């Protein structure tokens, strides 16, 4: 973000904390896109991000009277936003835990929950897409070719090739999906 925009948001905050109601439009235009994008980075795009951004914006408006003009306005706003995002994540985590517990209670035979099955399917799909980007040699080295396609004895050179192919696969996975 450029300094002028940051300064404009800060000035609008100072004016509002002084009681100048005419600065509201400037605050809304300057701060809302920033808060929304911050929330999207925190919880991903979608209705959740917008709800959080809205909650954060209203909270900032309600607490702006206590804003200290010697502090940076945007940092202050991000502090409030971070807290809201953290609260949302904790709430979501708790919901997930409760859901998992109830799923386990509903499945005494130990079979996987719907969520676990979905995750497994997604992981498999992502893995298959990734394998498709490897060269045929690498796939052969990793034993990922269809049965009968691979040939030849297992030698030291092949083990080395397998190791290199695995490294490349790991590297690709990390670059696309982050650390497992």
């Amino acid at each position, binding site marked *: 973000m450029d300094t002028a925009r940051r300064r404009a948001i800060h000035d609008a905050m100072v004016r509002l904390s002084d009681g100048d*109601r005419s600065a509201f439009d400037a605050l809304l235009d300057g701060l809302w896109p920033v808060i929304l994008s911050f929330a999207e980075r925190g919880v991903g795009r979608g209705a959740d991000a917008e709800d959080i951004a809205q909650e954060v914006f209203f909270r900032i408006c309600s607490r702006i009277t*206590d804003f200290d003009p010697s502090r940076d306005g945007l940092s202050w706003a991000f502090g409030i936003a971070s807290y809201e995002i953290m609260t949302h994540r904790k709430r979501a985590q708790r919901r997930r835990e409760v859901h998992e517990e109830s799923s386990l209670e509903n499945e005494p035979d130990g079979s996987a929950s719907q969520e676990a099955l979905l995750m497994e399917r997604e992981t498999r799909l992502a893995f298959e897409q990734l394998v498709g980007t490897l060269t045929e040699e690498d796939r052969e080295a990793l034993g990922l070719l269809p049965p009968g396609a691979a040939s030849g004895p297992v030698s030291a050179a092949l083990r080395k090739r397998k190791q290199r192919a695995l490294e490349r696969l790991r590297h690709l996975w990390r670059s696309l999906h982050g650390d497992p």
Partner: protein
Amino acid sequence: MVTREQLKQGGQRAYERGRLRSAARALWVLVPVVLVCALETRAGETCACLGFLLVGATVYLRWRDRRGIHAATAGIEAGLLPLVVGLLVRRLNPSCAEAPLWSLCTGICLGFGLPSGLLLGLRAGRGNWGAASTGMALSIAVLVASLGCVGLGLSAVAGASVGLVLGGLVGHRRLPAA
């Protein structure tokens, strides 16, 4: 998807609520002062009436803007000295309540109101508050002082008020020349 208008309306509502909540913090000071006045002077109705005016003016000023917050705070601070003196005089010399207009009790209230008003006027002049905010601050100071002097009769209230207003005007006018 929330619209800009919805965001603006919600934000403005939250802003005003926040300002009101912040303004209402003055009640932590004002309510005990009004209660002390009612208990010490046994003039419950008068104290309640003065307290109502005081709370209304203070909350309005603090809600309005930052200048109002400064004015209300300065007014309360300026009125505290005549308030305490009024309560003390009543406790030490209860006959003051029946004293005539020109009496020592009126003089005491006027004498303590004058320096408080002077300090308030100097503060207002230094902060460039303007006539309206200075007037509001003086009104709040008079209301606070009245809570303490009401037990000494109308003459004491008048004395404290005259002292505060005179001091305030002198202080406010002195600063630019100094």
